[in-house]
């Protein structure tokens, strides 16, 4: 469950961003979880909402929405766009585990299905990103 470390990062980054924007309360945080990192969305939402102590009063009552984002690759050599389903096989367990910890290791384990190159860009669906933080204005504090 190294996902806790990422969930903790999401909460802290959301608070920092909200504070920078002058929010007094966060109502919802939308997180996109990339398919490449193979994090279960339900489990991640649970870590955010139930397991980790919010720590920050800004997050009191905040809702966390976790969305899965399909992975998209683009081969720099032959220009092919491809997804997880275009790859031969699922990858070994060790490869999947490696990409779960460090998504960039896809370049060690996956190859472009057309030309065989490891030189592809991950254009979407890499890992954990915050796609939206919604909240309410501080009455007294503007952006810092």
């Amino acid at each position, binding site marked *: *469950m190294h996902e806790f470390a990422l969930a*903790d990062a999401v909460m802290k*980054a959301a608070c920092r961003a909200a504070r920078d*924007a002058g929010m007094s309360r966060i109502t919802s945080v939308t997180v996109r979880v990339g398919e490449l990192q193979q994090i279960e969305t339900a489990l991640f939402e649970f870590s955010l909402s139930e397991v980790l102590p919010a720590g920050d009063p800004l997050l009191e009552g905040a809702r966390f929405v976790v969305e899965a984002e399909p992975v998209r690759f683009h081969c720099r050599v032959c220009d092919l766009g491809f997804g997880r389903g275009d790859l031969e096989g699922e990858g070994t367990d060790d490869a999947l585990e*490696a990409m779960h*910890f460090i998504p960039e*290791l896809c370049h060690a384990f996956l190859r472009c299905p057309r030309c065989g190159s490891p030189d592809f860009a991950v254009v979407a669906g890499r890992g954990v990103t915050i796609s939206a933080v919604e909240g309410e204005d501080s009455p007294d504090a503007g952006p810092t």
Partner: protein
Amino acid sequence: MPGPLDAVDPRAAVVEDRLAGVGRIVAVTGSKGGIGKSVVSASLALAWADAGRRVGLLDLDFTSPCSHVILGADEGFPGEGFGVDPKDTAGVSLMSVAFFAPEVAVPLRGDEVAGAFLELLAVTRWGELDLLVLDLPPGLGDIALDVVRLVPRVEFLLLSTSSRVVLGSVERALRLLTGLRVPVLGLAENLQQGNDQGVSRLGASFGVPFLGALPYDAGLEDALGDPGRLRATAFFAAVRRLAGRLSG
């Protein structure tokens, strides 16, 4: 009411937190390859651990990781807890991409290197450490720039050999780091064979302390992978003195 904020990378927000329990952070560099950054980093970490300090070692050479070979780390994935746990290796808390990709090549472009580094910073649970050693890859690329940009309190230890082609490259690295006013602990010579003064003179010309020389040691190769034998080399004896000087 402010509009929704979008596309925030959560990882940068926790780098400081993850390193909060770490006393000092020492980045070993020199910008040229093959000057002993890795054997010195691993041996420094081991020497400090032997002296009772809590020490971590992060191997940042993703295409040629070798800290795990030098210290003889166990195979297999690291443990997972609140984050990823470094592997205790001869008393050193070691983290390396080699734990995740032990045999395959890891071809990465710069932005991918930076992405993997940030991920490691965000998820590795170092806990309480007196010292964390960063073993840098050659070059002044994404890793070196992100160590400067992201790692709080980092101090640089530079290595050089007395070869002209190495000195030229270390000189450029020194010019960069001193220009940026990044803390430079000093410059040590490695692979010393003759009595050349080139490295100490280079340090002096930048006002950077010369930290002594580590001898070329023909017995080092056979000691790699076995901390017990490593400790018995003349090279390690010199690293131990260096460790003492740096933590004194």
